[in-house]
């Protein structure tokens, strides 16, 4: 019967091509707009590392005097002081962990082939590569030895490797960051995380860094922070060393804790650590205040998906609703013209349910066609978003789930539009054809 209903639907489309076209355009536009905003929203809110996001934690420590408030909802700073980052880094805890901070250098090869250009550079422990599942096309992470000794080694991106070395294996070669020569030990494959979740400070969707160097270089190189720095009290900071010893917060820190037991013991460690710091007289607090947030909690806490994004999705669904309302009108006109035919079908033994189904199949087919066209419109919309805001490059795309969702939403929308007209027409009095001759 489904095949028959589909056949009848196609005939019906052919009989009223203009109305059908209008309805398809309406649903396609609605779906196009909805899927554009929904795709961006979906990418924004998507878990960047589903298999691991619940195991990677960002600690937050309250190392301020009692009564000093922060602007965050839980009164905790987003970042760590250098003292704390270093202490957590050096603590004897058997877990992958890495401090991290963003800086930037002028990159060149110390020849006249390539004009120096500015690149952001991130300082990390080599655990970072494991924790964030980075893949290498040449070489690999630097060694623990390099981490400890502060060797001048670097891992660069495939993209940068293309620019500097034409994509060839550059492991062992030299690259200059400002005036300092670094030895390349690895080239990593392009990041496919759409959100820069390991450091949300300066825009969650900015491009990731192309260059990584060991964290232990922070002191010898007197690394400038290219991210945010926040303080809560007056400190007379005149030298780099002053900054390292200050209560300014400017570093990120990640630790991988694979089991609830590890989380518990890490929390115990943080409790002890903060108690110890208070005892040392660094700050005056009665309580121990810290938090450990995993990736999704971290994204949520940092409002990566803003209220605006949600409003845009809401508005686009409103637009879809307007399209659906138009389709209801068109369907009413179309279906009611069919009352005589339905009367005959009813008299010949069609049940209400059969008539209802016939019309729902017709609107579903309409939804399928409109939804497919809507995908094309959404692609256009996403292309528009990408070419207007490069910030959205990684976000304004449709993944498989969105491709599947588009026709489903379209069919659902059309069924909603068709329910009332189909119900009206299926309630046609079967005596109609005898009464009106």
């Amino acid at each position: 019967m489904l095949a028959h209903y589909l056949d009848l639907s196609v005939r019906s489309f052919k009989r009223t091509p203009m109305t059908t076209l209008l309805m398809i355009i309406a649903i396609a536009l609605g779906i196009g707009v909805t899927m554009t905003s929904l795709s961006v929203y979906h990418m924004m809110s998507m878990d960047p590392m589903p298999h691991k996001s619940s195991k990677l934690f960002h600690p937050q420590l309250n190392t301020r005097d009692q009564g000093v408030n922060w602007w965050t909802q839980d009164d905790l700073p987003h970042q760590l002081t250098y003292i704390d980052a270093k202490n957590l880094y050096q603590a004897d805890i058997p877990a992958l962990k890495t401090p991290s901070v963003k800086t930037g250098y002028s990159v060149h090869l110390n020849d006249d082939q390539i004009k120096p250009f500015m690149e952001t550079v991130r300082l990390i422990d080599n655990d970072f590569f494991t924790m964030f599942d980075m893949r290498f096309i040449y070489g690999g992470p630097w060694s623990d030895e390099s981490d400890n000794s502060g060797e001048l080694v670097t891992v660069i991106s495939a993209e940068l490797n293309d620019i500097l070395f034409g994509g060839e294996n550059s492991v062992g070669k030299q690259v200059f960051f400002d005036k300092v020569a670094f030895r390349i030990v690895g080239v990593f494959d392009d990041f496919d995380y759409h959100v820069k979740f390991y450091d949300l400070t300066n825009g969650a969707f900015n491009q990731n860094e192309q260059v990584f160097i060991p964290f232990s270089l922070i002191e010898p190189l007197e690394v400038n922070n290219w991210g945010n720095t926040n303080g809560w009290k007056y400190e007379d900071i005149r030298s780099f060393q002053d900054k390292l010893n200050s209560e300014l917060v400017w570093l990120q820190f990640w630790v991988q804790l694979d089991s609830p037991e590890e989380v518990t013991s890490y929390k115990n460690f943080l409790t002890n650590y903060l108690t110890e710091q208070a005892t040392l007289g660094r700050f005056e607090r009665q309580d121990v205040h810290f938090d450990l947030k995993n990736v999704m909690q971290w994204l949520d806490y940092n409002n990566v998906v803003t209220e605006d994004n949600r409003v845009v999705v809401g508005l686009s669904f409103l637009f879809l609703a307007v399209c659906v309302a138009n389709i209801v009108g068109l369907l009413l006109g179309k279906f009611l013209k069919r009352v005589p035919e339905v009367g005959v079908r009813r008299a010949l033994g069609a049940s209400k349910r059969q008539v209802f189904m016939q019309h729902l199949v017709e609107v579903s087919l309409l939804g399928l066609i409109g939804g497919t066209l809507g995908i094309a419109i959404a692609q256009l919309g996403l292309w528009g978003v990408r070419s207007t805001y490069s910030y959205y490059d990684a976000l304004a795309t449709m993944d498989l789930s969105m491709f599947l969702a588009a026709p489903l939403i379209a069919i659902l929308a059309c069924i909603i539009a068709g329910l009332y007209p189909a119900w009206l027409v299926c309630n046609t009095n079967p005596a109609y054809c005898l009464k009106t001759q």
Partner: protein
Amino acid sequence: MLTMQNVSKVYTTEKVQTHALRDFNLEVNEGEFIAVTGPSGSGKTTFLNIAGMLETYSSGQYLLDGIDIGRLSDNQRADLRNQKIGFIFQGFNLIPDLNIFENVEVPLRYRGIKSAERKARVMECLEQVGLGSRLKHLPQQLSGGQQQRVAIARALAGRPRFLLADEPTGNLDSLMARQVMELLEKINQEGATIIMVTHDPELARRAPRNIQVVDGQIADFSLYQKQLAGTEPAVAEV
């Protein structure tokens, strides 16, 4: 096979109540061919609609093959209608988008009959009405008489034991009307029970049994026969 006892139908519109049928009593036996006549507005179509379960009645009892129709749901009535009853309308009521073959196929589809058997039955019925060679034609490509024959084929396709026809020849000229009548007689001889509403006294006379509906009731039969014989004026003319 059909028994109506004190069946009444009241149409209530905003302003008036119309008693389309009042205490209607009728007994129809298997294999009968009945012509129903009567003045316009007397309730003939209403009677056919109720007999064919296209409409519900206000009071009384209607049994079809012993089944109390008043107790059935809308879906059950649709089912029973599909199985037992074939309709022939004055306006033919073929579906304009479907070709001849597909039109005849419609009731079989709703019965869930498999494609091969549908095809066999449709061919059989179309041949029976002499249109076996015009399967792909659309209704508007046929004459009125041909269209009515398609409609009859459609009514026959479900092999109904009960054919209801409301002025099947009303839109046809007398030659075509006679052909349709002959077809109905043939179908009746093959076993189907037929109730036919007609305004044509000549056709009515050809039916073995005549009933006349006046003012929602069956008129006195003897009076009616006298009218047919021309010895009494027809009620409609009173």
